[in-house]
């Protein structure tokens, strides 16, 4: 359903990805793992059309996304939760959600649905996003992306720097979205967070996808973790 084929890209002269391929199906959580600087976040930015591809294709339901102007990519149904959340910090919670809704012309129904998923946010609608706690900011970033009713959800280290109870809430929402039929690409550093929810895991190293495995292949296989993550 969603496919990345042999993508080469980078920042200006500096090439970061040297041929990454990936296939994600609906109702599937696909994890990307790898060391810092391996190119995981770069791949997500490339999907969003924010980095020009030197080579390769990105396809959603057989339709090419690469080469589209960056603002049209989300309109095709790609929801993006970037690293570090990157909310519109000086806008209110309600306005951040509105930005998400406007992307694909979603209305009150989607808004209610999203606020049902994150009841904490509905108590803070008029609060400025930058003043929320870390966990609430992550909820808002996720809610904003879900407002698109996306086909594909990109999550870049959503649990980074959060306390365990928040991590659990985010995890539950991700699992729920899988049940709704979303294709989910999850970038994650912590192997224990991945094993319980991932359907497949792709290890990325030096800008290439090295191996795609099932979680059961990783559990108890220390060698593969040492090789790609150094843990």
């Amino acid at each position: 359903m969603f496919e990345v084929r042999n993508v080469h890209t980078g920042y200006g002269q500096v090439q970061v990805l040297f041929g990454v391929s990936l296939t994600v199906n609906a109702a599937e959580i696909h994890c990307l793992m790898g060391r810092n600087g391996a190119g995981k976040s770069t791949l997500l930015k490339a999907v969003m059309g924010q980095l020009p591809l030197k080579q390769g294709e990105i396809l959603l339901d057989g339709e090419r996304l690469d080469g589209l102007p960056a603002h049209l990519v989300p309109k095709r149904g790609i929801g993006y939760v970037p690293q570090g959340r990157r909310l519109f910090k000086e806008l209110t919670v309600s306005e951040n959600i509105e930005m998400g809704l406007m992307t694909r012309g979603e209305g009150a129904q989607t808004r209610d649905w999203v606020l049902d998923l994150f009841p904490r946010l509905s108590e803070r609608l008029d609060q400025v996003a930058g003043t929320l706690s870390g966990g609430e900011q992550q909820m808002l970033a996720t809610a904003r992306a879900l407002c698109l009713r996306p086909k594909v959800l990109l999550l870049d280290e959503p649990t980074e720097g959060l306390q365990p109870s928040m991590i659990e809430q985010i995890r539950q929402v991700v699992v729920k979205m899988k049940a709704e039929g979303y294709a989910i690409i999850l970038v994650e550093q912590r192997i224990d967070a991945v094993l319980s929810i991932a359907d497949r895991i792709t290890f990325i190293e030096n800008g290439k996808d090295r191996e795609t495995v099932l979680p059961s292949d990783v559990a108890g296989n220390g060698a593969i973790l040492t090789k790609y993550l150094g843990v």
Partner: protein
Amino acid sequence: MDFGPHLMLASLEGAVISAILVLTAMGLSIVFGVMRVVNVAHGEFFMLGAVFAWAVTTMISGHAALGFVAALIIVPVLVGAIAAGVDQLILKRIDYDVDRTIVATIGVLYIVQQSTLMLYGPEARPVEPPFNLRLALPWFEFGENGFQMIWPWGLSVTTYKLFVIGAAIVVLGALWLVLTRTKIGLVMRATQQDRDMAQAFGVPVGQVYSLVFGLGAGLAALGAVLVVPIQQAHYLMGGDPLLLAFIVVIIGGLGSLPGTVIAALLIGMSDGIISVFFSPTLAKIIATFLVAMVLVFRPQGLMGRVAA
């Protein structure tokens, strides 16, 4: 005239200067805030507004108010469209690079200025105000007969100047409503805060930039249409508004709209009052000195935030 009435007269002059300045500076501030572009050609859009206002009012015969209302509507849109064209043709091509946009807008400044000189000529041309009644203003004093109202000779204001002040307030109010209450305002604020994320949520950033650049220039042009009945249209008239707008934007805090309004009032009022009591040159000297002091002691400006 006594000091009191004299001060009142000077304050009214200051309020008119503030009114024009707040529109011009707001345009500069929005462009900088959203696009991070320092628009050196801003004063030329102001000048274009004045020259076009002359052209429109001359073309339309009949009552002066007819031509003036036409100018008030047509000119800001026209200048805004020209500015949006400049954005698409030039600023977009250099990718809004901070240094290069400064050089590019200096180029735009000379192109606009010299084209105006060639097509419009070096003359200063007046525009007739749509209405211009002189209102005498009262003053109060305690004399031998106790509290009484007097009408000092020379203490007066024209209806047109009051209209300028009122118009500026209305435009500011409308701008505030657009920015805070409408979708396009929301999109502009989101783009201002994070260009990449705005794009990731479907905002056509290129079009928003053109719109903002046009809006900024349109505000300057609107200020100019309001000012031509008081001050004549001339191809070099863009210099002072540019300098003052920069002063206002720096004192107010780069990109802060409330700061811009406060600083415009401060600079406009002091410019008016000092010009009446001392000299216009001293007013400019003091304003420039204020900028230096702000930059030394509060580099982020009155309402600016320190970059996180």
